[in-house]
């Protein structure tokens, strides 16, 4: 009897691990292919059939090249782009989280007239395609005389602020009112309740929203392209990559684009690794009793 249970749980463990491996392969394989392509020369890229690792076209021996990476770093654009992207995405995320969590506190936990219209007004901000709002946005930016980086930070609010506000509203609302009432009985001010109770308890949502918003800002292309057109020094990574002219390749520098794309993904993965503990650490068991 005991042995059967052992076998059953073993099968379950194997099935679970297989599932994990399957998910990982599905999610990571295309990225692997980008890294693979980034290690190939132009002639290796055009080999038929495509090879799963960079191979010499004649001898078919394993022969990766770092020339694409060298080209990426020689192009000063890329490193400057990394710095710009970091500044812009960090500021955007901070602003969107602060303004968004304040708004979400009101929308999720307080009763007031105009709650629903406010909720929809904030969402409406992001319901147009980016191309459509571009001309109007450009007019606003010019009228306010904002610099390229500040323009990007503010214009990214269009898609980050509604997102942080809505997600956090949904999560705040889930927390039982009893928690807030007991804090209030203890004499806590609204801000204390917000900081000491709402924020810690919804930390997983906060970190998740922050990460997703950060990446959305990090990857934005169209606004960045438009607003940096007069100030090339402010170009973010996606724009810098688009301006790659190809130091090595004669045509579109596909290998270099893949090298740059692989490189910029690494800081993001590190960022997630750093913050992922917070994704789980949100709830100390039993803190919320309904």
């Amino acid at each position: 009897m005991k042995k059967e249970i052992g076998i059953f749980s073993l099968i379950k463990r194997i099935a679970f691990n297989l599932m994990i491996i399957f998910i990982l392969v599905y999610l990571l394989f295309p990225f692997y292919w980008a890294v693979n392509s980034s290690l190939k020369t132009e002639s290796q890229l055009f080999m038929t059939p495509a090879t799963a690792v960079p191979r010499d076209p004649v001898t078919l021996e394993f022969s990766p090249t770092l020339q694409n990476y060298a080209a990426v770093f020689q192009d000063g654009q890329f490193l400057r782009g990394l710095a710009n992207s970091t500044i812009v995405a960090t500021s955007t995320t901070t602003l969107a989280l602060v303004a968004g969590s304040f708004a979400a506190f009101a929308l999720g936990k307080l009763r007031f007239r105009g709650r629903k219209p406010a909720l929809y007004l904030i969402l409406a901000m992001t319901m147009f395609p980016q191309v459509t709002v571009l001309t109007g946005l450009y007019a606003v930016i010019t009228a306010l005389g904002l610099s390229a980086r500040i323009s990007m930070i503010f214009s990214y609010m269009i898609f980050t602020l509604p997102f942080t506000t809505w997600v956090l509203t949904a999560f705040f609302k889930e927390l039982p009112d009893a928690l807030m009432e007991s804090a209030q009985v203890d004499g806590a001010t609204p801000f204390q309740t917000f900081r000491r109770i709402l924020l810690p308890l919804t930390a997983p949502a906060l970190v998740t929203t922050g990460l997703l918003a950060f990446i959305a800002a990090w990857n934005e292309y169209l606004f960045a392209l438009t607003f940096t057109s007069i100030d090339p020094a402010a170009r973010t990574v996606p724009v810098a990559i688009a301006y790659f002219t190809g130091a090595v390749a004669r045509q579109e520098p596909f290998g270099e684009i893949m090298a740059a794309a692989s490189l910029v993904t690494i800081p993001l993965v590190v960022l997630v690794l750093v913050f992922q503990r917070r994704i789980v650490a949100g709830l100390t068991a039993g803190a919320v009793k309904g």
Partner: protein
Amino acid sequence: MAGKNDLGSTNNWKAPKRMGISDLARREERLAFRLLLPALLIILLIAFYPLAQVFYTSFTDRVFASGEETNFIGFENYRQLLSVHVMELEPVLDEATGQQLVDPDSGEKVFERPLDVLPREPNRYRELNQFDLLGKRYVIGATDPNFIEAVQNTLVFTAISVFIELILGLAIALVVNSKFKFRGAMRAAMLVPWAVITVVSARMWEWMLAPSRIGMFNALFDRLGLIDSPIAFLASGGYQLSALIAVDVWKTTPFMALLILAGLQIMPEDIFEAAEIDGAGKIRQFFMITLPLLKPAIAVALIFRTLDALRVFDIFQVMLGQSTYSMASYNYFQLIGNRNMGLASAIGVIIFILIFVFAVSYIRMLGVDEE
């Protein structure tokens, strides 16, 4: 920390009982307004003018980047985009026999040419599609068949990709939520597709889906002996939409999974302990407890995914060029290619309305905004 002083000053914010109900409500309302202020200021500063301008421009014939005079033309842009007309096509008869003519090459019956039947005034209609009903042939004409097709493509794309993402995202979130060794690394790996720059990701997939064995998929399928000749995944017809859906599902499932995971994380564990004691099985627990508690997280994830899918641009633009449009890539074509800013704005407004309808119906369906 300006906010701290600000909010801290309202001590006893939810007023004690001796104060009147209205007083309590007023305090709460004032606090809510102050909390909303930063967000509202940002909207006013950044979003108000561009959004208002889109609405206004959609009623004009404004030309993009030109000094030409702009005229107010009412609903003309919308009429141009949305006019659809169904007409019956008369069979073409053989004058000698009185029988319907049959095309000697294709063996199909011959009907009138749609262009001869469809109205030309005030706008010229072009053929969108033909269908048979009760033995008669009909033609659907539209003044802008490209846009109607773009709407169809986008809706199909959105419905299928968002649905698959929801199921996959839910599954992945549940797996990652259980305790195992490399959970941290798994969470980081999970975000990789979302982290790859969108424009680059589209180029990368275009490369992998290349119509010869340069492409990973054709090389792989060929190696496995699944195909005789390379498949042109991105050429017009069969595989185009499926390929784009696959790319979008890969790229954005992490978004869905992560939001659902956050929803799972803030669930109080004692509910599950109680259910365990009551003898509820895992599957029952999932449907009776997990899913209902996940509703708010799923609702926001669905809203933002749908919103992005309805505005899908990069992958259509990069991977399909001008061969097949999504609403947003058609919008781009009208604005940048044709410089028809009035029409482009009208497309923007139509997308806006569609998204609004979707958002409201999600909220209603999932019942997440009930007080």
